[in-house]
């Protein structure tokens, strides 16, 4: 009963943490655009948080650079269970245009587990919202 209540609350208000692992900013401004009035993901109860300790979902952009790898893992470990990861953009999925650069890991799934990928360079805010809805479905099943 209590567990069901917690799950219901989580689906109705997943709090997200936005982390840039070396993206070019394009995905980041589209994630922000998704939060602002035209697209407004706050109507799903989604709220942007500054601390990983408050977050249920980590929205990660960028092709993980060698500098940021340890910080990404540390931020991921600071999030409370259960935690979910949304990889936004081609860089986050495969390294995108930065494939074969000497300083990148070519994808977030090389470092931490990913639940939903949103492809695009950068994905449109509509695509990011679609990814978020997919993630909410996954949350409901978990």
């Amino acid at each position, binding site marked *: 009963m209590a567990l069901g209540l917690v799950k219901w609350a989580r689906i109705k208000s997943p709090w997200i943490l936005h982390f840039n692992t070396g*993206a*070019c900013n394009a995905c980041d401004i589209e994630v922000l655009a998704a939060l602002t009035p035209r697209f407004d993901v706050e109507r799903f109860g989604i709220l942007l948080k500054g601390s990983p300790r408050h977050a249920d979902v980590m929205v990660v952009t960028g092709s993980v650079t060698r500098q940021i790898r340890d910080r990404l893992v540390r931020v991921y470990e600071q999030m409370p269970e259960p935690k979910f990861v949304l990889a936004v953009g081609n860089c986050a999925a495969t390294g995108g245009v*930065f494939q074969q650069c000497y300083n990148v890991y070519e994808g977030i799934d090389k470092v931490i587990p990913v639940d939903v990928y949103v492809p695009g360079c950068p994905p449109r805010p509509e695509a990011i919202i679609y990814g978020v809805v997919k993630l909410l479905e996954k949350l409901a099943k978990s």
Partner: protein
Amino acid sequence: MSGEYEPESIFEIPVGPQHPALKEPILLHFKIEGDIIVDVIPRPAYTHRGIEKATEARNYIQNIYLCERVCGICSFIHTLVYTQGVERLAEVEPPPRAKYIRVIVSELERIHSHALWLGVAAHELGFDTLFYYIWRDRELVMDLLELITGNRVNYAMSTVGGVRRDITDEVAHQIKKGMKIFRERLDVYTEVVEQEPTLRKRVVDVGKLSPHDAVALCAVGPTLRATGVKRDVRADDPYQAYDEIPFNVATYHTGDVLAQIVVRVLEMYEAANIIDYALDHMPGGPIRVKVPWNIAPNEVISRGEAPRGELFYYFKSNGTEKPERVKIRTPTLANIPAVRQMLLGYHIAEIPIVFASIDPCLSCTARFSFIDVKTGKSWVWDREQLRRYSLKWYGKQ
């Protein structure tokens, strides 16, 4: 306060790399005396991806798409300065209509970038209402950019020898209509900046930079113009069609965060005027010329005024389809010494807005330097030293 600071009274606060003022990774190491900042050591290298090296492994056309992704917010000006440089390498002149289209798209991009910054700055001040209003109106410009180029952020518009899409009369009409609505919205924001006491309390006399310091620390763009120094690549070294278009270089004299806001709002008005003028005076003709695949050995530089300041590219070709060397100097890197000066002597609570006031765009700013962990010594190598080191290292293998 005067005299030397006692070592034990200084407190160190690391900010970042996750979630400082913007959403990008940077580590700012603050030294605090009470509530006052006495020193800042910025470390912006978390987004180093090795783009300059990667350009040497791709041909001139592939590099357009790579350089576009140096920075997502100023993606068009990167392709513009890149393609302008390659055209100079190949000694090809783009057709006049392409030059006008490039000016129109880069000014639309300036509006979208400044509107984005104004929203983020309002958010840093805790004025979220303004943030949401501005981002709503920014979508108007994003729609126009999508109408012209087919994409919202990375446009793939400028190419070597011209542009890839034309602006039809119907689209031109839509742009003019959009600019009219946007000017009306800008009047509202001007009124807010001039009259809203809660906003003015946070930005007047905060993060001051003197014109002398700004020039000495090589600040560029709106950060420099906010101190009253009239310097703009568009006016000083006109590129594309800027020498045929009349416009004012917006400046303001106070040098604080308010001046940065005023300069950017004025630049949005100017950009809207430039777009209208360019649409009225756009010549006909082709939008693209052919450029040879292999480019003879040559060496050029290319500059442009990005929304954040002067963007600089250096090129060296070697007769093949790939460049020998591409060097990129982005405006945020030039502004980092200035923002350090702006932060000194202010309170901890003012860190976010002062740091955000230079419009930091760190994805382009990462550089390589060495730090010896044992002795704490740091140094930077130039290309020749790196080359010698690599030869020595491989010689041992």
